[in-house]
């Protein structure tokens, strides 16, 4: 009883001191983004000295890090090996960082654009279909027009993955049924009744939609408020129509 009373007292003491922060909850040490009273700019992290290069971060491989060849021209070839995993990775990155403006299928009609941001060009115009991959990499890295750079948010390897995914998107918007492997093609309903050929490049790496469905599901699209991508709510807006054909 004595101890209950004592602990009660202690508890109330803690409560009464205004906060329940115990000892050592706040320690005199820095954690990321913790403000500093010591440095003039109030940050605990220091910027590296101008021109300093961290060990292992010389980034000499200009093709990989800048998307340029030795002459300063955009590279035509991917500096990384592109496989399904890379495209998958690219898609997740694309959906997070690009889709808000460029739209899930790259038509330039993302959510932010609908709120007034300057509409970027669709990826499915010839100029961009023919642009070298290095160009796209460069845009992500350094920005383009109204688009600010994404170099801080997206790491080089991810940028290439995004580029690879954009290439896949472009291909999907311009594909022919004959591009499908034979087995996949056989699974489709009779030609002309199912989804139009060349509907989606994403399908290449995804199971073909069930025959009785006319909705192409984008399971990895970033969540929209309704939770069902492209089917209702914001996705049902007229602006979304083109991607359905």
């Amino acid at each position, binding site marked *: 009883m*004595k*101890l209950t009373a*004592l*602990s009660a007292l*202690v508890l109330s*003491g*803690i409560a009464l001191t205004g906060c329940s922060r115990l000892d050592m909850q706040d320690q005199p040490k820095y954690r990321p983004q913790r403000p500093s009273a010591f440095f003039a700019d109030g940050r605990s992290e220091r910027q590296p000295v101008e021109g300093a290069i961290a060990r292992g971060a010389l980034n000499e491989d200009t093709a990989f890090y800048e998307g340029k060849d030795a002459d300063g021209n955009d590279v035509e070839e991917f500096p990384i090996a592109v496989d399904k995993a890379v495209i998958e990775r690219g898609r997740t990155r694309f959906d997070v960082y690009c889709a808000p403006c460029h739209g899930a299928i790259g038509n330039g009609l993302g959510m932010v654009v609908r709120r007034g941001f300057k509409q970027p060009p669709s990826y499915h115009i010839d100029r961009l279909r023919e642009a070298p991959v290095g160009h796209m990499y460069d845009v992500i890295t350094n920005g383009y027009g109204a688009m600010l750079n994404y170099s801080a948010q997206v790491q080089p390897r991810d940028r290439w993955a995004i580029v690879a995914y954009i290439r896949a998107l472009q291909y999907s918007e311009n594909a022919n049924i004959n591009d499908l492997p034979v087995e996949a093609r056989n699974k489709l309903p009779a030609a002309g009744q199912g989804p139009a050929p060349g509907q989606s490049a994403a399908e290449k790496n995804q199971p073909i939609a069930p025959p009785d469905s006319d909705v192409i599901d984008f399971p990895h699209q970033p969540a929209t408020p309704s939770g069902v991508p492209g089917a209702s709510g914001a996705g049902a807006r007229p602006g979304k129509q083109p991607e359905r054909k």
Partner: protein
Amino acid sequence: MSQPVELPDQIYVGPVIDEGHSLASVSDKVGGIVLKRKTTLGWVFGLIVAFGLLQALMASATWLLIKGVGVWGINIPVGWGFAIINFVWWIGIGHAGTLISAILLLLNQSWRNAINRFAEAMTLFAVMCAGMFPVLHTGRPWLAYWLLPYPNTMALWPQFRSPLLWDVFAVTTYLTISAVFWFVGLIPDLATLRDSTRKPWQQKVFGMLSMGWRGSARHWQRYEKASLLLAGMATPLVVSVHTVVSFDFAVSMIPGWHTTIFPPYFVAGAIYSGFAMVLTLMIPVRKFYGLEDIITMRHLNNMAKVTLATALIVGYGYIMEAFFGYFSADVYERFMVWNRMTGPYAVFYYTLIFCNIITPQFLWAKRIRTSPGILWIISIIVNIGMWLERFVIVVTSLHRDFLPSSWGMYAPTIWDFGVFFGTIGLFLFLIFLFVRALPMITIFELRMLLPGARVKEPVAQ
């Protein structure tokens, strides 16, 4: 359980209570110390000295709370310094009180009646002092309630396989049961005080504290039963408490700590130091308050005998430790014994042997057992010796770790001493208050020792 007054013979040194006392006279004499006796200058002086020492505790504990346990001398490898030494020392001192009240009550030893109240109070105060050390040693005493098992926001529970948790249970149980036992024993005496005083405020206070005790035979019957039960439970309790304290050391794997004889050896050591402390306090109190007729030579003699017996058990423990250190053929065990005897703290070891083993041998002589002055000095030496024993156990075992790279030395700081002497101040302060405010001898049990208390039914009229 009638109490025949044992006739003095050559086995005994004297009666348990001097002749010439009556029911009324013992009541008035003991009660009078509280109610009538003027507050003497000596008492005030003693209280002030004790209070001054208590301030050392206050200051040291405050500084400790501000700065953390780093102000003490503890460090790696001696992480258990004064805190545990003093804890064990104090709790050992407490043991004599329970032992005198409980075991001697069970064994019908009537000589206990004159000293049990005082010894129990000593127990309570010593346990309070003892409990302070582990709590302060945790570093954050205000979170000490975390030691208790209760559903908390951390979803954590104490570790029931840890001897430190056993300590929590043992010490809190010990404190609670000692306090209950002590208070239950006080009830009839408080009623006596209530009825003896003429001052209304004293009547009110003692009246409330005695809870309206009126000495009803029906009450006494249950009261006696409860006392006996409490004594029956307090006896194994007191053994268990110091056993658990010994487990703090023994269940570890440190040479010098991990040894199976620790439980009985610690218990004997506790009783040893406890009886020594009772002697240390009783001898002056007996003199100052003129209680030679109630706390007789027989008491001193008996307590000295118990002290001697426990000293021998403790000595047996020392010899067993040394022998088995050799017999183990274990390099660490052997080094521990060797280090104790020849290492940097060897002087403490020999001092403790002198204090704990050599000094009490004088108690074989009845002349020494019955001369209060010498007995008092011996009891103080024993107290010092038992403190040194804990010092040697704690420090010599820790300061030489398994790896020589982790060897170190231990030196207490002024704050260690501040807390230690401060608890002595607290202890004395409480003792001073106790002897002033409450009857320090169990009056109703004293009455039972008197010839007039015996039931001689009149021949049928």
